[in-house]
């Protein structure tokens, strides 16, 4: 039953308006998310320059809360917790952003092509994507690390590769209803090329859900890369890494909580920040409040 009170069905269709980001910023959750992300990205970028000590510099006895010159104390190895914290965000952010960007690019391309060329290409592409999905992202990364060790390129490649099917599925899902709309038919009747239809007619109409998903994937990429660090597979030995710090210092949690709590809270705030932005964008795109299936 169509509602009888709306006059113009156009206003009920969830087509993203040009000012998606601006409208999303009207929501408090988006604002908080952006503030958190700006704060932690700031720490990660500026941190190494303002840190009082180097990331692997020995400053005193291990696991002390009160040490002169180290206001948050020392870690399991007698290094300055505050300095390691300031050094420890860059690699996570860098790896996660690059991996997500690559995965986003290929995922979106595959999703759009699959949605536009319904039929065999679509089936084959999506079947293949489902197989990649059969593996938890973290697990595939661990398997790949077995014989190579924690190399940056490998981590980026694996996270990007496992991000592709997730983005592709969402893109395809958002694009299929657009493909069925008549303006695509109108473009086809004019004989527009496939590439032009995909990039000029299809893509601009799925940017909303794509942006939401990309942001959500960034959240999970951060989680996986931090998780790898936590398992002891940070890309550089001795380097400070928020994930690794949690692992290193958790044994001494009751005597010197800062070594664990500070990096854990940093990762939490960062992922909550990106998660809130995803949610703000999703609500703006949908125009209504509703949870979304994500996995």
């Amino acid at each position, binding site marked *: *039953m*169509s*509602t*009888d*009170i*709306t*006059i*113009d*069905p*156009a*206003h009920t*269709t969830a*087509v993203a308006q*040009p000012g998606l980001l601006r409208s999303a910023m009207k929501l408090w959750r988006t604002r908080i998310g952006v503030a958190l992300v700006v704060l932690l990205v700031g720490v990660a970028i500026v941190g190494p320059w303002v840190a009082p000590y180097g990331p692997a510099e020995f400053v005193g006895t291990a696991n002390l809360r009160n040490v002169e010159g180290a206001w948050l104390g020392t870690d399991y190895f007698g290094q300055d917790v505050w300095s390691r914290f300031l050094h420890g965000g860059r690699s996570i952010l860098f790896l996660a952003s690059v991996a997500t960007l690559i995965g986003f690019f290929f995922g979106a391309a595959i999703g759009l092509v699959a949605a536009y060329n319904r039929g065999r290409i679509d089936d084959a592409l999506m079947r293949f994507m489902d197989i990649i999905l059969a593996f938890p992202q973290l697990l595939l990364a661990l398997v790949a690390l077995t014989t190579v060790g924690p190399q940056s390129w490998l981590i980026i490649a694996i996270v990007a590769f496992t991000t592709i099917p997730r983005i592709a599925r969402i893109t395809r899902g958002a694009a299929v209803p657009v493909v069925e*709309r*008549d*303006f695509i*038919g*109108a*473009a*086809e*009747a*004019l*004989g*527009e*090329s496939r590439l032009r239809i995909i990039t000029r*007619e299809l893509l*601009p*109409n799925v940017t909303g859900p794509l942006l939401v998903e990309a942001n959500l994937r960034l959240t999970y990429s951060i989680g996986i890369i931090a998780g790898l660090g936590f398992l002891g597979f940070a890309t550089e030995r001795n380097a400070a890494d928020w994930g690794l710090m949690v692992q290193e210092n958790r044994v001494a949690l009751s005597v010197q909580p800062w070594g664990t709590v500070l990096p854990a809270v940093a990762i939490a705030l960062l992922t909550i920040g990106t998660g809130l932005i995803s949610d703000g964008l999703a609500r703006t795109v949908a125009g209504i409040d509703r949870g979304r299936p994500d996995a």
Partner: protein
Amino acid sequence: MSERHETLAIRNLRLDVAQSGNDIVDEVTLTIARGEMLGLVGESGSGKTTVGLAVLGHARKGVGIHSGSVSIEGTDVLAAHGKDLRRARGRLVSYVPQDPGTALNPALRIGGQVLEVLQTHGFGADNAARKQRVQEVFSEVLLPATPSFLRRYPHQLSGGQQQRVGLAMAFAARPAVIVLDEPTTGLDVSTQAHVLETVRALASKHGVAALYVTHDLAVVATLADRVAVMYAGRIVEQGTTAEIFANPAHPYTRYLVAAAPEMGSDRELVGLAGRAPSPGRRPVGCAFALRCEVATAECHAAFPEVTNVGTTDSHDVRCFHAFTVPERTSRRAAAGVAAAAGNDAALSLRGVDAAYTGLSVVHDVSFDISRGECVALVGESGSGKSTLSRSIGGLHREWTGEILLDGAPLARSSRDRPVQQRLSIQYVFQNPYSSLHPRRSIADSIGRPLAIAGVDKRETGREVDRMLERVSLSASYGSRFPDQLSGGERQRVAIARALVSKPQVLICDEVTSALDVLVQATIIELLVDLQRDLGLAMLFVTHNLPLVRSIAQRVAVMADGKIVELGTAADTLTNPQEEYTRRLLADTPAIPEFPANPELPIDTLG
């Protein structure tokens, strides 16, 4: 009027948008007697469904019942809450939804869905009696009452059967009032005819008071005893069906009647541009005054009170200038246009077969369309008319045979056709809400065919402005985006885009089916003008038979993928040769002739 036994009485009903408090409907007062059917007519957005649901004490999300009363056999439904309200629903008053495909629960068996109404309301002595009643009511709505049928799920039924289950659910507990909300939208005409017949028979047999909500004047004319016309949330006119159709009083009603296509005549349709103001934008005075040609200062100042203008029966209208809009009687010389069309075929189909994912849906279709000629392609859904028109447009590739444009054969897919051919055949789509790129300006959308033809930007700009003017939109529309336009305006833009490259052939695929009747008439007017002026060969695809004679000179009737009858529109629709066409015509609801009351001042201005 006072002796009438009023089963349903709605008084001064007002519903609001819950957040803003703007009225969706207001001052709605109507009564329905036992055994009577009232047709509540209005365009989309007029508030008719809102009124229908309020009869069950229900308001959709975001809508609030503000004031007024709905009384059924003395029970005030709006004052009832919780258990009392639940008891009223289904027992005192029931609802037949618009789309039974979505209103039946996909997870439950149909027999169970009917049975639970009876169980909830304690109908009958025991469960055996209730099961008995379910079988009885299935028979009443002409469905098989076998146990195996009752155990089916909704998806195992056809659309018509689903709506019969909807009717069974509504009639099961023998309610006093039934609200039918466009129950035949989306059904084919033959199915619609049978469902309407059942509705009529059941309503009169059980003596229920029926509120039939619809936008379709022809259905109302054949079905209802009385008619109430809604515009912008108000009832502007009500009276007996004969009064309303023979002597429409309110200017809006007069326009509606003039815009309704008629099978039996090639009368020119007269439309009215613009749209009804939405909640929150409604003026103090008469909402129709903004579009009304006889509106005066007093119309803008106040909404007139109800006046009885009936002579024999009650006939109420809310207008200062009742009966003053001149009735439209001009006839179009359709034959003249047809004569202009020579034997010069712009488009020829020779033995076209088409398949849809391997299944053959069009068989051996051959016909020509001459320059300056409009051929209507009519048929029910699934007849293959859409596949055929998409094949001509190069949107569907699974076809064989020959389609010739100006004598030259066309490639199967538009991509394989030379630019000049692509631009010579243009397509206007059914749904104006989806045929324009939502993030592209109107001017860019219209100009795109020229860009493909390699026309330079300045020339394109000039052509776009000219085209906008040709479809009665000002050049300022060029910088707007589709979501700022109404459905009718969008369809004008789609027509402008189709005509900007000066095509020889125009394919119109159900172009008015998403539009209200007044706007539909304006689009038809526009297409008739354009086709005549530009000498277009036009293929007008539609399921709406009455529309055909207002636009086409010839008609091709399609069924099961074949052209069953092809002839001039006038002959085919008045004197069909084929059994299929005859049945189709018989099933199509039409407004019957109601003798006008000579005592009324008709055509005072005309």
